[in-house]
């Protein structure tokens, strides 16, 4: 724990360390270091940095840190499920086997379950395809069992298999939103630190 505190104490600006470093280290050794102490030291070091640095140096750093955090969170997210639509087709419009196979997602899996089980996307009376960014479950009109299956399939969340990338990437605008949120929160944290630092300075 002492090593943690010594490491955190390095967060203080060099000028401050030069003036107070020795006595501060002596105090840490004498008072002992707990997680609470470590957090207190980290907070104080951050305040000292803010006091000794310009807002325009800290703001971009924290914002970039926030953006990186946002991107990291976003990259861990499951893909957004694609909208699903059910379509019934007449036998006359039913595509030939090779055509429907070419258009259907050969390997699609239920979202939120990973790709634990893949299933054939085509049976004799139903097939799944991606049309205009939407999953379309087609079934043969009049076939009650096929319609039931199609509705069961449509009630699940679907996404494009990222490993086969058969139909290209799904649009994922939410990732950008997370990055922007991270950027904004970094900026907000920076502003909060500046305001708190200023109020403390005034105290």
């Amino acid at each position: 724990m002492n090593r943690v505190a010594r490491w955190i104490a390095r967060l203080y600006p060099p000028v401050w360390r030069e003036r107070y470093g020795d006595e501060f280290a002596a105090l840490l050794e004498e008072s002992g270091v707990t997680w609470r102490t470590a957090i207190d030291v980290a907070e104080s070091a951050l305040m000292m940095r803010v006091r000794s640095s310009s807002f325009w140096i800290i703001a971009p750093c924290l914002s970039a840190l926030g953006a990186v955090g946002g991107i990291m969170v976003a990259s861990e997210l499951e893909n957004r499920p694609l909208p699903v639509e059910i379509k019934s087709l007449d036998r006359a419009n039913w595509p030939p086997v090779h055509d429907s196979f070419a258009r259907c997602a050969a390997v699609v899996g239920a979202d939120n379950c990973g790709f634990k089980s893949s299933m054939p996307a085509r049976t004799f009376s139903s097939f799944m395809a991606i049309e205009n960014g939407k999953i379309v479950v087609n079934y043969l009109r009049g076939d009650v069992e096929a319609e039931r299956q199609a509705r069961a399939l449509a009630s699940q969340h679907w996404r494009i298999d990222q490993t086969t990338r058969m139909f290209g990437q799904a649009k994922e605008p939410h990732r950008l939103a997370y990055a922007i949120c991270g950027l904004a929160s970094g900026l907000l944290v920076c502003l909060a630190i500046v305001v708190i630092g200023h109020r403390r300075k005034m105290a």
Partner: protein
Amino acid sequence: MTDPTLLVLSSLADGDKHGYAMMEDIERFAGVRLGPGTLYGAITRLEERGWIRGLHAAKSDRRRPYALTATGRAHLEAEVAALAQITRVATRRLKPV
């Protein structure tokens, strides 16, 4: 009253102390355990304002003692007077009518 700067000034009012002694003293009279970061944040600000000054530490001791300056003492007296006034009013108003 947990303003660290006021606690540090109050601690130094009865004599010079180094960081750890201040920490212990403040805990004794105010019941607040200041973290090392908070304590040294207050010390830094007070020294910048000229309300306390660092003394020379003994050669074998890394701990630097601090002393209250005349300006610091005047500030503390003003603060204490203001607090006493607030306390008087609050106490009077809290009394059942």
